[in-house]
């Protein structure tokens, strides 16, 4: 049972990464002048749509047998609406948190909100898929000893790593290197969020080990990132 779950997990995460990569290449066939750096906002929208879609598909395929106990249409509709409301709420609350974190209130509203959206797709959407619109269950998963299954374990780790990645993404903002990806200040958030997300996903096969080991990995992971960032500072200075 556990082994099959781990396999499924691995495939699910691989699919997620694949969808992110696809979202880089596919739109260039349909849209003119599409590139990640220049039209990053469009790409972010597309990326979040892709990830959401993949999550939904996974949910329908993998977990359908678990949650289809009650199958009346009205129940499904209300559940869906509830999910939408939750997603929207999470977007807005993330936006508020970003502003409290120091993002400008009026300028770059669109960028900040898109960041909130993409962070929601990486955190809230999987939560909604796995746990449903059940806030108590969410709170339970994100507390000590609150994890009951391997799926929840994976959810916990990916979500926390996404937060850490977003947080780390703020660090290149004050640098004056003049790189193209720094032009959009908030964009730093995005890249790193996705990177860390992928890194966290790649580490998922370790999940059969204990939770403790995995959280350690995340910690070291973030540390490595920080040190590389700092290391690049120094190299910047000496050149």
């Amino acid at each position, binding site marked *: 049972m556990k082994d099959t779950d781990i396999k499924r997990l691995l495939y699910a995460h691989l699919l997620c990464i694949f969808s992110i990569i696809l979202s880089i290449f596919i739109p260039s066939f349909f849209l003119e002048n599409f590139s990640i750096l220049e039209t990053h906002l469009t790409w972010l929208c597309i990326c979040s749509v892709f990830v959401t879609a993949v999550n939904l598909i996974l949910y329908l395929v993998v977990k359908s047998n678990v949650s289809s106990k009650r199958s009346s249409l009205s129940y499904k509709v209300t559940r869906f609406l509830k999910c939408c409301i939750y997603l929207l709420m999470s977007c807005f609350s993330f936006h508020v*948190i970003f*502003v*409290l*974190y*120091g993002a400008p209130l009026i300028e770059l509203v669109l960028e900040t909100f898109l960041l909130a959206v993409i962070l929601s797709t990486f955190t809230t959407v999987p939560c909604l898929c796995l746990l449903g619109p059940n806030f*108590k*269950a969410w*709170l*339970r998963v*994100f*507390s*000590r*000893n*609150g994890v*009951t299954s391997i799926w929840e374990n994976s959810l916990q780790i990916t979500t926390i790593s996404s937060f850490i990645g977003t*947080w780390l993404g*703020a*660090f290149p*903002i*004050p*640098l*004056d290197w003049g790189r193209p990806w720094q032009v959009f200040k908030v964009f730093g958030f995005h890249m790193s969020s996705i990177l860390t997300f992928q890194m966290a996903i790649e580490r998922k096969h370790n999940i059969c080990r204990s939770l403790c080991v995995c959280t350690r990995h995340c*910690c070291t992971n*973030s*540390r490595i990132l*920080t040190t590389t960032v*700092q290391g690049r*500072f*120094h190299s910047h*200075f000496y050149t």
Partner: protein
Amino acid sequence: MQKISVLLFLAWIGFLFYAGIALFTSGFLLTRLELNNHSSCQEPPGPGSLPWGSRGEPGACWMASRFRRLVLVVIDALRFDFAKPKLSQVSGEPPVSLPFLGKLSSFQKILEIQPHHARLYQSKADPPTTTMQRIKALTTGSLPTFVDAGSNFASYAVAEDNLIKQLTNTGRRVVFMGDETWNDLFPGAFSQAFFFSSFDVRDLHTVDNGILEHLHPTMDSGEWDVLIFHFLGVDHCGHKHGPHHPEMAKKLSQMDQVIQGLVERLENDTLLVVTGDHGMTTSGNHGGDSELENSAALFLYSPTALFPSAPPEEPEVIPQISLVPTLALLLGLPIPFGNIGELIAEVFSEVEDSQPHFSALAQASALHLNAQQVSRFLRTYSAVAQDLQVKELHRLQNLFSKASADYQQLLQSPQGAEAALQTVITELQQFLRGVRAMCIESWARFSLVRMAAGAALLAATCFLCLLVSQSAASPGFYFRPLLIPVVWGLTGAMVCAGLLAATGLKLDLVVLGAMAAVGSLLPCLWKAWIGWGSKKPLTALLPMPEPVLLLLLIRFAGFFSDSFVIAEARAAPFLLVSLVLLLVAQLHWEGKLLPPKLLTGPRFGFLTPTGPSRHNGLHALGLGGGLLLCIRVSGLFHRCPEETPACSSSPWLSPLASMVGGRAKNLWYGACVGVLVTLLAVVRLWLRHYGNLKSPEPPVLFVRWGLPLMVLGTAAYWALASGADEAPPRLRALVAGALVMLPRAVAGLAASGLVLLLWRPVTVLVKASTGAPRTRTILTPFSGPPTSQADLDYVVPQIYRHMQEEFRGRLERTKSQGPLTVAAYQLGSVYSAAMVTALTFLAFPLLLLHAERISFVFLLLFLQSFLLLHLLAAGIPITTPGPFTVPWQAVSAWAFMATQTFYSTGHQPVFPAIHWHAAFVGVSEVPGFTWLSALMVGANTFASHLLFAVGCPLLLLWPFLCESQGPRKRRQPPGNEAEARVRPEEEEEPLMEMRLRDAPHHFNAALLQLGLKYLFVLGIQILASALAASILRRHLMVWKVFAPKFIFEAIGFIVSSVGLCLGIALVMRVDGAVSSWFRQLVLSHQRAGEQSSLVYTGAGSSAREAQPHLLPSCSQEPLAPGTSSFYNLKP
């Protein structure tokens, strides 16, 4: 004894840090080597004949003098674009009407009418662009280094060779009028001088009017050869109003008239030079090296034709020090020995002679003299000091010898082509420019040994802090073993120093301090290491939990990047917010945030909460949210560092006096007064909540009546200060007097409040009542005569019972058996009440030193720290008997908040951003830069460091204070009721801060631990900035970013450590006072020969219904045997 040893140990740690800082500073902030050689007429700068064979001519030196006399007008901060005409000619752009444009119209007029007589240049000043450095550069022709920037207001005489010295040596009469700085630089050099104080930057007119008064009489008297004017009005106007103010236009017009007057009076043998010493930023400040600060206007005018051609369309850009060799040769003086400037070649053309060949030859010979002098200086300098790059030096020397040989060759064959002359000129210019570039590159000499030793000392002290603070948390901690090696080490160092002094060795004070520090540090470190290393692994030493360590590491690493140092105003709140979110997340993770019923759903019944939550979860969430909001709002009071282009400083940082609109000003003033009142109300509310406002002690009375007076005084001062310019002329004197007296009164009130607090720090309400504690009767208050039978039925038995008890009480008293109950309220918050009161007293004078609207930040500061303390208290468990600990996250959050408040009070760690106006609060006239003004400016700059350091013990006290809220809000679980009835005191008694008193040893250990942890967090900051400054000492930004950051961190650290010791000393004073208070209480009751019992109440804001309960577990040493103590809480 323990208390004294704790304080001594902390002071010693502080001394170690100071010694490290001093050692590092002495190695890092070295001055450029100043040579004392002088040029002289008799000694030409190099071999070869002097041009024109001028040696024999009277008044001639290296070169024949072109002008007999000089008028040098220095207009402080005359930026280059102040001399520009109005931009009406520029096509395509809409004409901008900046107030400073086109005001110096006489320049343009002269340039148009007499193009061969005058020239306007854009002169580039080298950083630091402070007046003293610029004057030095303008007279010596060298590059004054950074260290001088610190001594701007206590300048020293110039020891190097300079123009003024050369002038007096050749017997010229130099007359000076203007800025007093010249007197400090050249004492006694002027034949006649009128000095005016430069320090009062609010005063636009005194200096200028003083100069104008003496200008014409002196000039007409003719008793001068060189006249120097230094006008300060433009600079002061920039500091006060900024360049875009209409006042600037007036000032520039006045300067224009002065120049016009001078031009009309010039005789043919006189040269007029008008120059600015530096520019100013858009906010009117200077000191850095931005484009606007660097560029100054330079205008030359001679009544006879001086230039061979008409001025170019766009004025030429020249280095500022070019003026020095130019003036020297024009006046027939030797070029000052240390000059590295390149003269302005076109001035030396032969105008009368139309042949271009002679013109070029004259230029080449002047340049050759200049190059010879610079080459001589380089040779001398590189023989004494090794800091110039050898390779570059060789290259330049070769370049010079080649150019020199070419020049000599040309002299031999005077019919040489003009092209050859031009190449020589180019070569000489290349040499001079190369020298200047090389000097700029390498003129900061460091003593690497001292820097490394200082950094190592800092690091070792940080490590010691870590070691001792961790071992102080263990239960079996003793102070004595720590102090012994310290004492031995210090004595050893003293003996060593004494021996060295006796043997006659001259010893540097810094080195001596460092030796003493190392001598005492090593045995202590060894001892602590032995005590530690045998037991536990090293990783247990680190600040835990890991995220906090990560945040501290990020903060440490951030010091190594100039971008992060510049952006620290944003980065510090970022880290603080992260820490706050982390705290909330951690609370949730451990199940303390939300009530367990939310977590234990039907499916997850097996989940057991880790412990009963002491706090309401939503309460903690609200605290976190409020904290984030406060941090964000205080971030709005942000001052931009100068480098960031797309950034505008908050307009709220300027004083109200600079606002123009009357209505907005009034509104803001009202808001500021509202903030003051809110601050007062918040403090009073807090004290009332914990009941300390009921005490009849003098400090409390002072809080009740003195604080409103202080608020009133501050509000009145602000009103007068913001409207001082609008006061009717008759009241001017009165307003000026009040402006001086009001701040003094507020400061005096605050000081007397602090003294009162130190005298009687125990703010406790004592009520002695007779009767057994458990049988207290409740009397209904008298409300008129009884009207009905029911009333009578109720009242009469009460009266009876009361009489009965009274009687019994008297009986018992005569038998001396009945216990006397002494109810002491607010003992539970006695420490923190004293702390909060002291902080309030400190905050008000500091508030007065800031601009009015910064009072919002002060209010936010209080709110923020209150919320943070509550949030931290929610996560800290109270370990009742055992060792108390202050977790790392608390200390780090406190330090982050201190940094964040430093920035949100409108400061930046750069010198131009210092709020100099703080030196004028409550001072009638400024005689100069005194220690008082230094103290006031320092208090303004480091206000947040001071407040947070003094308030640091609150981190230890607050969890105990919050204890009172838990049980009161929590309902007793139904099952426990029977038990609760039996032993109600165990559930209901909040001992609060008396828990600390019950374990004095652990209390002292915790204070030591707290102090060490705070010093560690500050210590790694100073260590990081020192390391950054030393590793990146050749970085482009070192003098602009890293060095000022290090200096600010160092001073901030000193302020913080002193404040920390003061705060801890205050807590200890309260502790001592509480002990003596207990002793007195017991003594007085024993003297009465009665068995007494004591009732403490924690948060008893109303003393009426105190229900005392017996608490056997608590013992009070000062209480005599036979007395019992009670702790109490109102139900």
